């Protein structure tokens, strides 16, 4: 079946479901009306959301505070009632007749006994995720979305630094960013995925091309809640591998709220307000956020500024259609330059990133049996990234200025010393997103089903000036990677996807089963040579044997489509010196000729989606009403992450020397006898294309133990942690130039007539970590105060890499006539012969004996952090935090080190926040 047919069939099926009527399902059904009121004022609450997730039913309270859910089938159902600023409530109701109920919502406040300043785990039977609510965000004093991730099991405490790019890695044990893991982490804000797919490598300053979203762009003061899915996500979420972060912005009535966070490196102020525009006119929310950070207040060589604002309008039409429209702007400025105390030399790098985004979401309560709630989402995100730099270009030796963009020999100017120059990059990633989804529930015999299905379309493009030099004769990068690259001719990305998911529940005896089974189809660049598609099945299951024990099982595949940077790499420029008379005494005789060979790859065809397979198994034990233990083991493999392709191309290049093709011309530049070079070199280079040769495996066990609240201490305890292991390798065969002792054999560099091929995947990088966090949360409602303290212990940190014995498995020689390579196998007999030579070079010198580096194991390391949040009155409050409260910076040494190193350096940090609500 062709791609077009698949898409058409999916569309047809969707609309059939959408328009199907209830004729076939004549089950008994009722109307449920729920009046929602404020627990204290007793006033009705307008705009509260009512959801029966298992049946796909959605409603919003009207001007009288009444939410109406029609055609609710007979039976038990859970209703979740939520509203901004209130504690959410879940009620299980037994629908046997028309029901009129009332629910009181309690305003979220530190006066409550229950405060949520830690992440909450998801229930069994759905994706493994952590829910981070508004109180947790405020208590953490997060300045950006990335700060919140330290609340997840196994994640380490962080010191917030806004002056460097912050990206999201899921379940990795290594200390450095894994680009593929970060690229495969989806961040979805109000239903619209943030996308890096159209970001190019701008070559100036930081780039997030082929890497994760920069989490610094999102302040936290306008966030209502964050769900971090690190397990197997619902089929609704796609274009990801490692996980997803679902961000929900504030929408609804809120007081005026002014917040200011200050710590030694950062100032972050925000303003927000949500107005109720009257019973019929919905809600209008605005937010404004400004953050400024310096890397180190002593040496002001880096700074970051963030200004963002948004206006959100939510309203309900005809009691059936709930819409939310949001316009947001975001401006980031990264600056790096000289310290003001330094003698100014005019060097700096500035990156300005301006983004305007418009999103619109509608939820239509159709209440048809096969189309209960229709949701549509549309989003446009327009970015303008401008990077400028002024710098000195330095190099050991002469700096040829090669600007050629076509293959040929060029008489090039050159610099013999450093020079100051400037340039930059202009990039305009634009992203358009459309999504239409439907959900409905049904009970078939003992099974209850809740179906979700949807279609998504993304269009992502980046037409811009790209990388440029202010003066082409003084390039920023005087090398083959420094040619200007306009993005105008880079094609746009078209991505179509569809998903279908069934959330089943049934009961056999006392055993309850839940199964979330879904499949997602993703197709990138349909109809083009480089098109790529994938089908991703996903399963999350749970079995509840008793009320206190749930088993979890999960299997899922996720796919991340390649970005523009992977599909449309830049031309490869190979520059080689052909004539050198640059050192001639007479300036008029000086000449430097370079041969430029341009390999125009145009596009990477054959690139696959990075596909990730996850398995999860775990259990939840309810030890008592207040004590819960959740343990999850995971195995998360991405065998085909994006990497270089390793494909080579061939070309020949002439060299001319004085008397050998170069004829001396006293008083003038030498004349070149092009037909008679001193030498013709056969050269080979990498094409610069991308492949799928990055293999990564994350596995481990996460646990979360809710130790409950000790009433007499007013304190709750939580103990969480994880054992994580990350291994990675390349599955690409390595091409290696032979080592030559006798330099007369092949006197010019990089001109050996063959190269060895070593087997793939022999050397593995391995990181392991076992860490725990014990959190104590002291909450004194009468004082409106929460104090929490976290004790983090990294019990075990292992960093290792193998350096295995390896023999070359083959050697390749260029076949210039056919522009190809011929591969010859290397046999064991050849390797056994100590005198065996390939083209004069001893084969035994190519044998790698291997010598594994000893793994580095760090001793246990402890750190404590403390936080306090206190409402001074109903209108004002403050928070205060101290990271590494005990200023514990022990001198330790690893198992292989002979010297002591001071640990926890730079982790001591403190700050405070003031807030006013009126």
């Amino acid at each position, binding site marked *: 079946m062709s791609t077009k047919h698949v898409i058409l069939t999916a569309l047809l099926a969707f609309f059939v479901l959408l328009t199907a009527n209830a004729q076939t399902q004549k089950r008994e059904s009722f109307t449920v009306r729920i009046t929602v009121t404020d627990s204290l004022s007793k006033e009705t609450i307008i705009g509260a959301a009512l959801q029966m997730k298992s049946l796909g039913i959605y409603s919003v309270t009207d001007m009288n505070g009444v939410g109406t859910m029609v055609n609710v089938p007979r039976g038990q159902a859970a209703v979740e009632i939520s509203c901004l600023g209130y504690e959410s409530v879940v009620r299980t109701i037994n629908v046997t007749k028309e029901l009129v109920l009332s629910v009181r919502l309690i305003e979220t406040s530190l006066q409550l006994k229950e405060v949520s300043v830690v992440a909450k785990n998801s229930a069994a039977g759905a994706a493994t995720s952590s829910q981070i609510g508004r109180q947790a965000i405020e208590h953490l004093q997060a300045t950006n979305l990335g700060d919140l991730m330290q609340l997840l099991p196994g994640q380490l405490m962080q010191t917030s630094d806004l002056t460097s790019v912050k990206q999201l890695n899921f379940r990795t044990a290594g200390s450095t960013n894994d680009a593929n893991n970060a690229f495969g982490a989806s961040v979805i804000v109000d239903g619209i995925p943030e996308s890096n797919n159209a970001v190019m490598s701008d070559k100036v300053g930081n780039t997030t091309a082929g890497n994760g979203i920069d989490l610094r762009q999102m302040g936290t003061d306008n966030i209502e809640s964050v769900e971090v899915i690190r397990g197997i996500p619902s089929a609704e979420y796609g274009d990801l591998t490692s996980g997803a972060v679902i961000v929900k912005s504030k929408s609804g009535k809120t007081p005026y709220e002014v917040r200011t966070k200050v710590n030694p490196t950062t100032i972050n102020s925000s303003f927000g307000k949500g107005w109720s525009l009257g019973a019929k006119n919905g809600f209008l929310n605005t937010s404004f956020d400004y953050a400024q950070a310096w890397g180190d207040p002593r040496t002001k060589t880096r700074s970051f500024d963030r200004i963002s604002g948004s206006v959100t309008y939510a309203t309900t039409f005809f009691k059936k259609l709930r819409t939310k429209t949001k316009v947001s702007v975001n401006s980031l400025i990264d600056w790096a330059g000289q310290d003001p105390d330094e003698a100014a*030399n005019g060097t700096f790098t500035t990156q300005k990133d301006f983004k305007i985004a418009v999103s619109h979401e509608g939820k239509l309560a159709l209440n048809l049996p096969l189309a209960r709630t229709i949701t549509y989402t549309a989003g446009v995100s327009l970015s303008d990234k401008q990077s400028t730099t002024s710098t*000195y270009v*330095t190099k*050991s*030796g*002469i700096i040829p200025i090669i600007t050629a963009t076509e293959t040929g020999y060029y008489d090039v100017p*050159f610099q*013999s*010393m*450093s*020079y*100051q120059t400037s340039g930059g990059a202009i990039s305009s990633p634009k992203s358009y997103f459309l999504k239409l989804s439907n959900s409905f529930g049904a009970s078939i015999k003992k099974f209850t089903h809740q179906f979700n299905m949807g279609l998504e379309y993304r269009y992502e493009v980046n037409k811009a000036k790209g990388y440029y030099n202010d003066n082409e004769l003084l390039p920023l990068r005087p090398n083959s990677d420094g040619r200007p690259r306009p993005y105008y001719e880079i094609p746009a990305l078209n991505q179509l996807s569809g998903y279908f998911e069934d959330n089943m529940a049934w009961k056999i005896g006392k055993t309850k089963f839940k199964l979330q089974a879904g499949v997602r189809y993703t197709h990138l660049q349909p109809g083009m040579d480089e098109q790529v598609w994938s089908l991703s099945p996903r399963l999350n299951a749970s079995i509840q044997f008793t009320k206190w024990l749930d088993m979890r099982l999960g299997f899922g595949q996720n796919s991340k489509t390649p970005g523009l940077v992977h599909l449309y790499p830049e031309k490869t420029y190979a520059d080689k*010196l052909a004539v*050198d*008379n*640059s*050192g*001639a*005494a007479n300036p008029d005789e000086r000449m430097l000729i370079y041969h430029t060979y341009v390999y125009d790859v145009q596009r990477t065809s054959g690139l696959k989606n990075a596909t990730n397979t996850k398995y999860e198994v775990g259990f939840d034990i309810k030890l008592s009403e207040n004590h819960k233990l959740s343990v999850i083991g995971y195995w998360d493999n991405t065998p085909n992450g994006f990497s270089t392709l390793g494909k080579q191309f061939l070309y020949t290049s002439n060299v001319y020397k*004085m008397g050998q093709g170069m004829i001396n011309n006293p008083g003038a530049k030498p004349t070149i006898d092009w037909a008679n070079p001193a030498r013709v070199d056969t050269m080979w280079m990498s094409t610069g294309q991308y492949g799928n040769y990055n293999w990564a495996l994350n596995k481990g066990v996460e646990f979360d133990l809710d130790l409950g609240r000790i009433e007499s201490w007013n304190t709750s305890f939580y103990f969480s942690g994880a054992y994580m292991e990350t291994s990675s390798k390349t599955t690409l065969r390595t091409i290696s*130039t032979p*080592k*030559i*002792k*006798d*330099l*007369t054999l092949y006197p010019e*560099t990089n001109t050996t007539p063959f190269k060895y091929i070593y087997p793939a995947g022999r050397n593995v990088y391995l990181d392991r970590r076992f860490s725990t966090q014990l959190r104590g949360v002291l909450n004194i409602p009468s004082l409106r105060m929460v104090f929490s303290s976290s004790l983090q212990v990294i019990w075990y940190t292992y960093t290792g890499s193998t350096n295995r014995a390896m023999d070359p498995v083959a050697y390749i020689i260029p076949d210039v006539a056919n522009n190809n390579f011929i591969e010859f196998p290397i046999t064991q007999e050849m390797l056994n012969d100590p005198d065996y030579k390939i083209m004069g070079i001893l084969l035994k010198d190519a044998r*790698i*004996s291997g*010598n594994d580096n000893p793994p580095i194991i760090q001793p246990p390391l402890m750190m404590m952090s403390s936080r306090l949040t206190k409402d001074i009155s109903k209108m004002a409050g403050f928070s205060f935090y101290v990271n590494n409260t005990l200023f514990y910076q022990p001198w330790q040494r690893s198992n292989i080190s002979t010297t002591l190193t001071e640990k926890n350096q730079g982790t001591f940090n403190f700050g405070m926040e003031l807030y006013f609500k009126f």
Partner: protein
Amino acid sequence: MKLFKIKTILILLISIHTFTSCVDQEPQTYIDEFSVTMTMPEDLGDSIHFANQTVILKSNRITYSAITDSLGKVVFNNIIPGVYNISTHQELTSEISLVGDTLQYQLFKKDSLVLQINKSIKANLIISKVYAAGTKDNNNKNYVADKYLEIYNNSDTEQYIDNTFYVGLVEAESVIAYPASKNPGFVFARQVFRLIADNTKDTIPPGGSIILTNSAIDHTQFSPNSVNLRIADYEAKNTTYSNNSDVKGLELIYSAFPSLIYMNLINGGDNSAFLFKTTENVRSFPIYYIPGKEQGNRYMRISIQYLIDGVETLKNYANTGPRIESKRIQTYVDAGYMFISAVSGYTHESIERRVDLKKSTSDRVYLMDTNNSSNDFRAVTDPTPRKYDKPLLTAK
């Protein structure tokens, strides 16, 4: 009020007096006696003693000298305890000198030492300058194209350079791979260049020199402090620096780093260099991985019997100074070491041989050649090719 002020001042003065009285003013402990007895080389027989020669004890802070008695013994009295380099030398004939030395001798109590004196043959051709630090260009950025080595004819006869002369740069791993102490008889090179590739020969007159560089151009146009190397005699032809087609090429025999085909003079060091002569096929000399490794960099092993001259130039580390244990050249070739003051270079510092004031005349400069670079060399700034007139080089 006035009384109060006076009281305060008095209390302060008394306090200061009390505290200063607590300062430990115990006198410095000296070593009463340290004797050094010289043992002469066997072939000189027992009748010749190392008499009336100066022996120098030198630490980072202080230098002592004393004259040997008729039996070749010297006694130092009232020595401050410390770590000393001990050296002495005697001009036996115009071609042979006697040298004795030991490095890093720990002298913390009354002690005696028997110092072996070795015979040292004076070379006609000697390495006289190692300029590797580089400098700053007109924009005050690093400039490294102007590095050079100079070889000087310290004899009274014309010397001929033919295709049997080689220059080597010694292995310079940060963790020393081939210390002299563990490799008697050999030196391991990171690079070897042959001075003349064909069957021609060059003549160096007495007091003349040859200059080896990576870029034989006038560098002063790019860096005001730099040097004009158009007068260089040999150039390592390469594609990194501007080459002068009028200057002869050095032939690269071996490079531990295949892409480095020019002289790998490291800005900060180590840059120990040696001059050797052999008719053997140097390309066939064995090369070895670092002991204990079977991959990585490989170094060419050269028998010390071929060496004409060598100079140990070490990197100066910020807190510890040069690492003496990094000596890779045997002490009978170079008993000492020299280093520039900068840790990373770019200071236009050069390591240059001192002028032998006893021998030199107004018409002819002779350079020091005691086979001890601590004695023979000095680090000077702003080197000038073929010139030896810096005050540090001509000081007594």
